[in-house]
């Protein structure tokens, strides 16, 4: 399996993603430059965290127009797996690959470990997880408040497109466990085809026991599960 990691000028989690794929998963990875029109044969695309183009306007607003995103969109349209992490999630929403929008947090920028609960295992990135599994990983963002109108939210629930929710240590989605004011505690969603997943927490920073959690590994392992199907 070959994983393509998009490098926008302001990406800053691209190397962490690379490290996760190559050193922890043992798969090959290729960096995809934002100005290129070439996925270099990647089977999977990661839109990593960072501040793609400074994000002074809205996170991800400018990045969606970059040349590489046309290729990413085409890849996604053909069912190719794409994961957007943090800024990558914002970009995927702006690009219309995922529903909803990520607005300024209800509070300030927040960097902390959170617990999320897996809601769906029928996506390209959660096949190795189990429904209700609690995963601990860091968040670090200022614009992560998942927002959509009520009708859209209901539809997402009905379609099973909500992949992760912020929960407390007992697995309950409480207001206190919601770090950014996201509607219905939503931490991650998927598209109708279930091949595109976006989430605000950083699985690539939770690959190593030395860093406090290995719970991010399951997302990457899911890719291998998906690849074998």
């Amino acid at each position, binding site marked *: 399996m070959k994983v393509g990691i998009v490098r926008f000028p302001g990406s800053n989690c691209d190397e962490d993603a690379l490290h996760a794929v190559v050193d922890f998963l043992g798969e090959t990875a290729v960096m995809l430059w934002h100005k290129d029109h070439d996925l270099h044969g990647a089977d999977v695309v990661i839109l990593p965290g960072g501040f793609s183009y400074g994000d002074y306007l809205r996170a991800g607003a*400018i990045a969606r127009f970059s040349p590489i995103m046309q290729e990413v969109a085409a890849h996604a349209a053909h069912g190719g797996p794409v994961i957007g992490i943090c800024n990558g999630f914002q970009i995927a929403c702006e690009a219309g690959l995922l529903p909803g929008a990520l*607005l300024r947090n209800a509070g300030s920028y927040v960097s902390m470990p959170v617990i999320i609960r897996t809601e769906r295992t029928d996506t390209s990135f959660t096949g190795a997880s189990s429904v209700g599994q609690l995963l601990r990983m860091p968040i670090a963002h200022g614009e992560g408040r998942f927002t959509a109108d009520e009708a859209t939210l209901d539809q997402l629930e009905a379609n099973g497109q909500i992949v992760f929710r912020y929960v407390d240590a007992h697995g309950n989605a409480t207001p206190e466990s919601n770090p950014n*004011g996201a509607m219905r505690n939503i931490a991650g969603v998927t598209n109708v085809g279930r091949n595109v997943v976006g989430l605000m927490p950083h699985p690539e920073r939770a690959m190593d026991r030395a860093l406090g959690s290995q719970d991010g590994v399951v997302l990457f392992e899911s890719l291998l599960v998906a690849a074998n199907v």
Partner: protein
Amino acid sequence: MTRFRVAVQIIPRRGLLDPQGKTVRDALVTLGFGSVSDVHVGRHMVVETDAKDAPAAEASVRAMCERLLANPVTEDFTIAGVVAA
């Protein structure tokens, strides 16, 4: 071609939760501005652009809003004014 200055306002769609507006209102109230009932916070942008006339300038900025400046999921925009620069 003339240079125009086009002002746009981009505001969070009504009906969506606006925690920022609420935070500012609460702050104003604590500062003693008790008669404030509501605050909305949006963006004010001024685009300087060359166009053949004012309607063309406005049309072009409208296109910019639709493509980039406003988020169609959460924001509305209005062109507030077009003046020759």
